[in-house]
């Protein structure tokens, strides 16, 4: 096991149809993995990657040394992947904003303990934006 593997949890994160729904045709505001973060210097092409599925490497423990949970993942995504300054489109009042359903391994996160669910390697977290059109 490498040091990287012991420190980090590999996760799949997906955003269906993006937090920034009203802002044009681009789906995704969050960019990809660490490598791409260092590879690109940060511009629109990063901000609006068309890719909705992201493989991320989350630190195994949060800043307080506790096992990383979904609450920490949300904060971490905001700080590390989200390039758009309007965090309120994703997080409101310290939680994922209303209208975004969080799924952990294809289950509503409310079935899994919401923010307190401790992430495991290989977990799949999906942020689903509710649709209203018809």
């Amino acid at each position, binding site marked *: 096991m490498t040091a990287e593997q012991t420190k980090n949890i590999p996760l799949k994160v997906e955003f269906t149809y993006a937090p*920034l729904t009203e802002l044009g045709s681009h789906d995704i505001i969050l960019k990809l993995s660490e490598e791409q973060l260092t590879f690109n210097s940060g511009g629109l092409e990063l901000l609006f990657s068309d890719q909705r599925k992201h493989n991320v490497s989350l630190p195994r423990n949060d800043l307080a040394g506790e096992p990383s949970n979904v609450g920490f993942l949300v904060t971490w995504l905001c700080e590390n992947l989200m390039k758009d300054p309007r965090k309120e489109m994703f997080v409101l009042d310290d939680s994922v904003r209303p209208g975004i359903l969080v799924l952990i391994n294809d289950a509503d996160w409310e079935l899994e303990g919401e923010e307190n669910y401790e992430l495991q390697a290989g977990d799949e977290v999906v942020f689903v934006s509710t649709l*209203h059109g018809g």
Partner: protein
Amino acid sequence: MDMFTTTDTHLTFLRTQIASTESQLRTLKAQLAQAELSAQTARQLHEAYQGGFPAEWIEETLGALDDSSERDIARKLRQDGGFEGAPTPAPAAVAVPVLDAGGAKARAGRWPLADEEYKRYGRQMIMPEIGLHGQLRLKNAKVLVVGLGGLGCPAAAYLAGAGVGTLGLMDGDTVEVSNLHRQIAHKVRTVGGMKVDSAVEFLQAYVKLQTFASSSPSDLVCSLNPNVKYAPYRSHLSPDKAVAIFERYDLVLDCTDHPTSRYLISDACVLAGKPLVSASALKTEGQLLVLNNPPRAPGDASSGPCYRCIFPKPPPADAIQSCGEGGILGPVVGVMGVLQALEAIRLLTAKPPAPPPMTDWMDLSMDSTPPVTPEVKPTMLMFSAYNTPQFRSVRLRSRRTDCAACSYQATVTQHSLTTGSTDYIAFCGSTTPLDPLPPESRISARDFARLPTDGSNILIDVRDETQYSICALRGSTNIPWNGNAEAWVQDAVKRGVMSGYEDGRERFVVCRLGNDSQLVVRAVREWLGSAVRVREIEGGFRAWREGVDRSWPKY
């Protein structure tokens, strides 16, 4: 103080008792409705048997019937020996006039369905999932479709096709040309007419054919299923009438396009005790939910969640995008509407579970345990046309014990709906209105058209690339606005349209409707200061078409 404590305890006790009793009353009413439906189906089957039900079908068909009432009849009929021997030949089929708005009539005392109905529904009736009993359940069912757009059109079409007895159709909108790529019930001739009338004409040769000036008798034979009884509602659903209308139906389909109606429909379904099939779609994505199923009384945890259980708070109004703004692919919303019809058929033809033993739960005492019922497993089906896999079913939570609509603590009541104290518009909020820019930061489309085209000014088109490639003004530069002011300004500088602004050249910003262009002007002011001469074209390309170029594509 002791006296008050005692009084409070007593009040709490009484309230809990009332809630519990009301809950049981609702359950009883629901069971009564179920029993009535079963009895009706059984009666019709009985008539069928009396009429000469072929002996070789009996075992198979009766085996498919789970209801105790139907079983009783079956047993009785077997004992009577009513089916022994060859059935008497059926009388010559009576042709059902297709134009009969009342629908095909079964010949009393012989077969439960009319000859035309056996032919029409035969392909679905020969499947065990439907069978004769399922077809009769469909025929006895009343389904309300709220919204006759991209979801409601296909949903209503398949339900009418399947032979649902009564279809309520509700919409306050009129047909527009931009609806036709996906709203399959409407057509060029019904543009400008009520969607409800257009849909009824599509589904059934409607008696008031003069609704559309050019209707001709030949339209009658084009209708889908005249056997169905159609109940048109030519207005949007209002909170004060919702519960009363829903009570007339067995099932409701939410085919609307806004959070206000989604919360209202869900609340009214909970209050009226009806299951809800809800779908939505935008761009290339769709979502499907079966809610309040089975529709047990508020507080009964064995029922499925309502819309508020899943989404207790609406999204910010600014985050909501309509099909007109975001776009919609016809088959995507069509798939979702067809899936709604499928779920409706599955619910309507499902065999009802055996009722719990009455003695156990009629006990009104505080500690009575609710009847044991099979666990509901609520799910949401997500469809994403351009992803793999296209379909994904995810598990949802069950009822929320503090839900505003379906818990013991519900604050949404029939009274709050009727009086308007449950205010859906306030609940869902409204979009933040733009502070209009000062006049010196704006220019009308007409005035802009009069400016010289000698390169002395710069036109920036901030629509996205897809829209820009549909139509654009020559010489304009496309820098899409995505809501991020800093990033946009950086891009504009990089693309050269903001550099050298000391030269005195003026920048003009245009978008589709004149909203984003104002945000861009603001962003430029914020990041580059007032030295940049920048104005936005008021009303965007919509105003351009109206005031300058009538041939400009209106999409």
